[in-house]
């Protein structure tokens, strides 16, 4: 995953996205703030929303906890699909 590590902590891009949501923002605004490509922002915010780290209110995302918040629970040392 791009924004969440296997242990449930945020990756560097995940931390950047959450930090950019200090104020609720659209994906386009987050892309401008972080310098990340818009496709990465949309993909990353979707992943973080599924993990409960951010939430979508209307057309804006907001962080659900303080910056650096980690998602509830981990996904095991080998990630969601196992280590193979």
């Amino acid at each position, binding site marked *: 995953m*791009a924004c969440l590590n296997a242990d449930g902590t945020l990756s560097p891009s995940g931390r950047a996205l959450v930090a950019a949501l200090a104020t609720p923002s659209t994906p386009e605004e987050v892309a401008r703030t972080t310098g990340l490509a818009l*496709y990465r922002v949309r993909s990353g915010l*979707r*992943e973080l929303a599924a993990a409960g780290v951010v939430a979508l209110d209307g057309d804006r995302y907001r962080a659900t906890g303080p910056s650096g918040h980690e998602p509830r629970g981990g996904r095991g040392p080998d990630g969601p699909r196992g280590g193979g």
Partner: protein
Amino acid sequence: METTDGTTPGARLPRLNEPAPDFEATTTHGVIRLADYAGGWLVLFSHPADFTPVCTTEFMAFAAIYPDLQRRHTELLGLSIDSVSAHIAWVRNIEEKTGVTIPFPVIADLDRAVATAYGMVMPGESTTETSRCVFVIDPIGRVRAMIYYPLTTGRNTAEVVRLVDALQMSDARQVATPANWRPGDKVIIPTPPTVETAAERMSEEFASRTEGFERVDWYLCTKSVEAL
């Protein structure tokens, strides 16, 4: 369901100016959907396999044009029937051996879902690898151009940039572009659809009000346009 020759019965290949097949795919940059590129241009391209020589030269060439494409609001997305771990190992190896960073994501299409939807597997060449395909997809998700190259022949990435330039010019100015057109060259005024407009095209009045107008005949006229 696949047949023994790797084809999918009834699979419909993409067609120009129709919606690009939708997808959600695992990539080296996470799970990406086609919709994530909405509002910008996308160049989706496939390569036969990781850790192969022609593909390695192509990846380096695609990396070289990535800044040019970004300036054109265009993203790159690679694909092959390899695992994401293989992709990661390969792009790391390219960087280690050549110093070239691969900045764009690469789809790990192990189940061939995207390759099948886009007709990237050519069983006459290989039933296990994708051919060298390029799909240019516009900001509203339509397939605007397709290029298919065989396994033996690396693509000309400068042509991919030129193609994006030509499509964007056509959209912005409602014109066509002649053979070997480059930005700054004159463009083709669309062919007159009626005898009335054909006659108008032959008039001096039309010529005098059209910047850089040149006429071979009523059906082949060019003009200058401002750069995008």
